[in-house]
């Protein structure tokens, strides 16, 4: 796992601390809220009993039809769309109605199930009778069944407006009444089934319309409720369908209003059950009583609200701190990972194209462990550098230091030879010394070449041209050499002199291993973005068991011993030059008793 991810995991784990704190606050809030609800329920119990007692003392005055307030622009159209907040009063299975009030005026919506429409204008027809009672007496309105549309009231009954609406299984009539102090109501529908055959239903008893009372709030109740309403509490006394008889509230010290953001945060962070309503402002407790229920709305007082706000503030600040820490951790991880990555990159590019080791690494001045690591690696690199430098100079130093003693041996032997011209021991000693000198010269030549390679500037040249030039020289020395040039210019970056030296070595090698009866073939071709230069000759094979050491220095697998010692530096030098050209030099036995040396290198990338 990458370092930055490791640290990220640890950072995320560190979020568990604010999470635990949040859980603690949440359960604290839960306990707090539960205690408020329990207290409210006890309060509600007390209020219910006192309301029941008061009700009994006042002749069960919690009864009657309760008109619900309607929107003042409710249209008179027989439809029940604007009545949705008002529950039905079911009179009989076939008749139900709703009672509403707009600006003190009563409005009725009566729905009757009667799928046998009788609308004969002259004879019998379905009728809806509305009986209204007030202090002056009783008034009876008779509405005849008619087609969809406004009901035209007869002259003596002008105190109402109505709209007849036919439904799938009957009709629905919306009636606007004009008498404001209505206190009793009776509804009867007459369903004519045929001639002299009709059924009546509604507020009927023994074929007499029974007027039912409407609910009228009493000031004694209001006073009583104002007395028993606790601070920061609202009481609603409702009937079984939820219509409100009485409402009473005691706002107490009005708490400062709290922003919706705080409420939203509270909902998200503390509310156990998001499906229920907000607990932020308080709790709602309902207690049933015969004939309805009592609803108690307990609002949080100022102290409770500030406690909740403190909860929120604490949790928020701990979370903010955690997020800042988290971001800090992450940035730190990124920086750390970046520094290590930079060090890694620096280490990879320590060896430049020419084999120089650069000892400067990133983070070298940092005082932490990465700085130590960088300095440690720099120190190691400079040691390697020193050692490489030492090795590079070893050859020339060695040859230099040995030159003087060898010269002494040589001059001594030569003097001796002048005196004893035919002494075979002197002869042999001179021969051996001569070889020693040759070896030394080869070694110093090699170290010189390495230096030349290190110092040579790279230029772009055409390998195809160079090869054509060289082949002329080679062929004068080895007439059995054939050349297959590339069909286009092969632009290569490097040094033509060094490249020529490489080819000299390969061709010389081929010449040494062949007789004029064998073939030496040279070929150059372009393959994709690379070139392939092949020098192959027949008549010899590579020793397969030594293939890996073929290009090593001081390794020679030649059988014949010439008078000139062979150090096996040729292919090593060729390899050095190939590396300088970023090319690969390889050798293999081809099937037909021949050997091929292949130089595979990149073409110059420059367009020009």
């Amino acid at each position, binding site marked *: 796992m990458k370092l930055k991810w490791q640290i990220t995991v640890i950072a995320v784990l560190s979020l568990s601390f604010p999470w635990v704190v949040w859980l603690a606050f949440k359960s604290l809030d839960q306990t707090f809220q539960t205690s408020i609800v329990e207290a409210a329920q006890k309060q509600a119990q007390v209020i219910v009993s006192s309301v029941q007692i008061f009700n009994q003392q006042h002749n069960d005055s919690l009864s009657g039809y309760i008109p619900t307030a309607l929107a003042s622009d409710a249209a008179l159209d027989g439809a029940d769309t604007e009545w949705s907040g008002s529950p039905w009063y079911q009179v009989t299975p076939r008749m139900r109605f709703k009672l509403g009030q707009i600006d003190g005026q009563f409005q009725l919506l009566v729905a009757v199930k009667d799928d046998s429409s009788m609308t004969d204008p002259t004879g019998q027809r379905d009728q809806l009778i509305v009986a209204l009672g007030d202090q002056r007496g009783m008034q009876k309105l008779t509405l005849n069944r008619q087609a969809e549309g406004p009901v035209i009231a007869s002259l003596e009954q002008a105190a109402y407006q109505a709209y007849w609406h036919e439904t799938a299984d009957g009709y629905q009539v919306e009636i606007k009444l004009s008498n404001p102090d209505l206190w009793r109501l009776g509804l009867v529908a007459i369903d004519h089934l045929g001639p002299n055959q009709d059924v009546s239903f509604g507020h009927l008893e023994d074929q007499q319309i029974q007027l039912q009372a409407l609910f009228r709030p009493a000031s004694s109740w209001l006073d009583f409720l104002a007395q028993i309403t606790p601070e920061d509490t609202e009481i609603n006394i409702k009937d079984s369908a939820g219509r409100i008889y009485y409402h009473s509230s005691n706002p107490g010290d009005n708490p400062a209003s709290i922003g919706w953001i705080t409420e939203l945060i509270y909902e998200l962070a503390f509310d156990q059950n998001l499906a229920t309503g907000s607990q932020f402002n308080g709790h709602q407790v309902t207690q049933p009583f015969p004939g309805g229920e009592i609803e108690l709305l307990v609002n949080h007082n100022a102290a409770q609200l500030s406690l909740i706000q403190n909860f929120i503030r604490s949790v928020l600040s701990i979370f903010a701190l955690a997020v800042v820490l988290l971001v800090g951790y992450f940035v730190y991880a990124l920086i750390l990972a970046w520094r290590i990555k930079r060090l890694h990159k620096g280490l990879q590019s320590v060896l430049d194209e020419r084999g120089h080791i650069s000892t400067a690494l990133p983070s070298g001045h940092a005082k932490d462990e990465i700085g130590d690591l960088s300095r440690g690696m720099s120190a190691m690199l400079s040691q390697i550098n020193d050692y490489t430098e030492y090795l590079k100079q070893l050859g*020339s130093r060695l040859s*230099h230091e040995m*030159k*003087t003693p*060898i*010269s*002494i041996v*040589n*001059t*001594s032997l*030569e*003097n001796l030879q*002048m005196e004893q011209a035919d002494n075979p021991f002197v002869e042999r000693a001179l021969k051996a010394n001569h070889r020693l*000198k040759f070896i*030394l*010269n*080869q070694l*110093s*030549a090699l170290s*010189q*070449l390495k230096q030349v390679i290190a110092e040579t500037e790279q230029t772009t040249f055409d390998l195809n041209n160079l090869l054509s*030039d*060289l082949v002329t*020289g*080679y062929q*004068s*020395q080895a007439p059995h050499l054939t050349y297959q040039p590339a069909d286009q210019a092969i632009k290569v970056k490097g040094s033509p*002199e060094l490249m*020529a*030296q490489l*080819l*000299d070595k390969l*061709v*010389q090698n081929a010449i040494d291993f062949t007789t004029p009866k064998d073939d030496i073939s040279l070929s150059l071709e372009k393959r994709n973005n690379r070139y392939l230069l092949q020098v192959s000759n027949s008549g010899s094979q590579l020793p397969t068991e030594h293939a890996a050491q073929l290009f090593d220095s001081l390794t020679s697998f030649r059988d014949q011993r010439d008078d000139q010692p062979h150090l096996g530096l040729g292919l090593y030098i060729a390899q050095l030059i190939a590396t300088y050209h970023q090319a690969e030099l390889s050798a293999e036995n081809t099937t037909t008793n021949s050997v091929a040396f292949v130089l595979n290198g990149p073409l110059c990338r420059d367009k020009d």
Partner: protein
Amino acid sequence: MNHTPKRITIVEDEQDLLANYQATLTKHGYQTQGLTNLEAATAAFNETLPDLVILDVGLGHQADAGFQLCQMLRQKSATLPILMLTARDDEIDVVSGLRLGADDYLSKDISMPHLLARIASLFRRQEANVAQTSQAPLEKGPLKIMLDNLQVFWQEQLIELTVTEFWMVQSLARYPGQVKTRDQLMHDANVFVDDSTITSHIKRIRKKFQKADPDFDQIDTVHGMGYRWKP
């Protein structure tokens, strides 16, 4: 051999090597004087100058004592043949870069016969200068090779070549267009060195000519074979 033996002073800090050089030279009829340090050499040269001086570049811990002596000697005499022996190949570059006026630079591991041949040719060059005898010079276009005093002129300008370089130029220019291998050049110049030393000799020769004529481009490298003088 002349009836008055030539006096050769050898400055070399290696006693054994010095003794061997002296033995060889004495055997071949030269009168030799061996000196092992800078002070002794300075004192001796202030007293009298020999006919030829062989200088080792490094004397004891003084890595460039030979250079100082060479400079001093050249101030005293413009014609005294000076032969410098170097232990390190790259010293030749340094020495020639300093333009100290030595007549030749040889590697210390030169064989005695080669050293003797070189000394003989230096004396010959000196004598030719003194005697003003004229062997017909070799002329190839702007190149004029004075075979008797081992001098080379390019476009009438004297090119200050060492004896080794002179023989190489002579070997190349005698048959223009013909490729001379490194072995042939070594043989003609009477030196025994490795290929890369020949390469650096050729480089130096080119530089010396280019100093006189920046457009000089007469010596071709024939890769894999050697060098040739452009016809």
